[in-house]
């Protein structure tokens, strides 16, 4: 008897709690609906502010020179493409050359990063060896060191090797896993893969290289993709290293070429400068649209765990 009474009490209490919870939920739903509209209005406003500079750049690149400054309207009175055609050839070398240069540097750098960083990450994440934690700690420390500390000795070193004004200083370090960030990213990913895979493969007589190539890499395509996209965008946008190592205009990458427009100031070729600026952003925007998920996940997880 006693027990069933407490059961009843309990049932009433649970019921009561459920009713309160439901009322709270209703109230919250109503509040949230109103809040949501307000929120969207606000977010759309912020979006406009965020995008306006980019649209202004895009619009200006189609405007005749005298319209760029003086009006806030984004829509050009007439669309002009001559900023693009003239801008492409406005510098001592055409942008065909600069894009080729950027493509070579970026392409080789991405390959270098993927190969060397995945090698190192595989060793750190999946292999047992003497000195592993020691070297891992060193690797993590290099993540903290600002590039400027190694910049000057590296420059002297590459100058003595006769590498200045070639792409070697920009590309070779990437084949030596100089971007420790990507090692770290891959280590995080490799560690999540089940150990049993390696063990089973080992029992079947697979070499570590075979395991890396046939098991780890195929399973790590998301991590590889993320690293590829990030290194592509960063190398494409990189300004400091090309600024230091490339002196000859014909070896300039796109960012260096854009800077040349600034040096030509007074010639007032703003439309052309903006047109080429827009073009320099196009690859990044395309990759962003195509690989948005990877980029978002990459930012959200890198170094988070």
């Amino acid at each position, binding site marked *: 008897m006693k027990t069933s009474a407490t059961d009843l009490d309990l049932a009433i209490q649970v019921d009561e709690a459920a009713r*309160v*919870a439901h009322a*709270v939920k209703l109230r919250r739903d109503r509040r*949230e609906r109103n809040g949501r509209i307000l*929120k969207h209005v606000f*977010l759309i406003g912020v979006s406009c502010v*965020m995008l306006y*500079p*980019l649209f202004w750049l895009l619009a200006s690149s189609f405007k005749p020179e005298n319209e760029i*400054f003086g*009006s*806030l309207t984004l829509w050009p009175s007439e669309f002009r493409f001559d900023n693009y055609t003239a801008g492409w050839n406005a510098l001592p070398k055409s942008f065909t050359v600069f894009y080729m240069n950027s493509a070579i540097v970026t392409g080789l750098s991405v390959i270098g990063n993927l190969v*060397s960083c995945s*090698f*190192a990450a595989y060793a750190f994440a999946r*292999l047992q*060896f*003497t000195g592993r934690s020691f*070297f891992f700690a060193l*690797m993590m420390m*290099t993540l*903290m*060191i*600002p590039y*400027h*500390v*190694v910049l*000057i*000795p*590296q420059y*002297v*070193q590459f100058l003595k090797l006769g590498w200045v004004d070639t792409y070697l200083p920009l590309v070779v*370090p990437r084949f*030596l*896993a*100089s971007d420790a960030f990507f090692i770290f990213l891959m280590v995080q990913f490799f560690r999540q893969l089940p150990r049993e895979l390696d063990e089973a493969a080992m029992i079947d007589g697979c070499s*570590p*290289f075979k395991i890396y190539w046939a098991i780890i890499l195929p399973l790590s395509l998301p991590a590889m993709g993320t690293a590829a996209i990030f290194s592509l965008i960063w190398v494409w*946008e990189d*300004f*400091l290293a090309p600024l*230091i190592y490339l002196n000859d205009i014909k070896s300039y990458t796109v960012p260096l070429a*854009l*800077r040349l*427009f*600034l040096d030509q100031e007074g010639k007032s070729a*703003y439309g052309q400068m*903006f047109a080429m*600026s827009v073009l320099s*952003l196009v690859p*990044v*925007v395309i990759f*962003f649209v195509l690989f*948005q998920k990877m*980029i*978002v996940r990459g*930012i*959200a997880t890198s*170094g*988070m765990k």
Partner: protein
Amino acid sequence: MRRFFARNAPAYVFLLPWLIGFFLLALGPILASLYLSFTRYDMVNVPEWVGLDNYVYMFTRDRRFWKALDVTFTYVALAVPARLIMALGVAMLLDKGLRTIGLYRAIFYLPSLLGASIAIAILWRQLFAADGVVNQILATFGIQGASWITNPNTSLYTLVILAMWQFGSPMLIFLAGLRGIPRDLYEAAEIDGTPRWRQFTRITLPLLAPVIFFNLVLQTIDAFKTFSSAFIISNGTGAPADSLLFYTVYLFNEAFKFFRMGYASALAWVLLIIIAVFTAVAFFTSKYWVHYENERD
């Protein structure tokens, strides 16, 4: 011995590119840079040992060094909090019950992704030019704008605004962090009638502390290293009146314009020490304000 070798060889083969890179591109240059910082070195003559002269000169007589520190610290102190507050605010708006989150997230992140581009620095120069868009917008409200970029009193703020515009990547990290906070905590607080503001200070902030800490450290280190935008906007010199003389711009000019490689190395070491001290302080104080999930039980 042979077994030791057999056990370790494969790992070291995989590690080889990184090991070579570490010794030739990191450890070697770090030590070389430390050595050079005690020398006078112009790239033509052999480095001449001058002891602590570079450092003594830097701290006692080099007014531009102090100016560069002043500019950089001011920038860090303004830009980092501004960017993080924007990032957290927008992340919280996006976090709850929005179906269109993907689109907003993309729009807000895009400026960060493009942010390192020279194109954006060029754009920013023109937006804040005397006849630029910002002044035209102000003019429509009847406000007389300034020549933001060429006025040393305002030029730094244009870069702070650029930094605010690029709140996307900390925002994404905040979003991931917010998703990790259990919903039922908020539901319980609702039932108890806890006001929103207290929910924010009692639930969101404490549970997000590790993420805030992570963002703070990362963003601060990044802000100390700001280069490209400052370089482009100031024409590579730190002008006007050195108001955009960011530390890295000063370092670059000392090294690659005036070829004072020894002095520039000393500057680089001071930057390293500043960043190291900041990181260490952040980590040591973090135990008072950052509590990790697994520490509590």
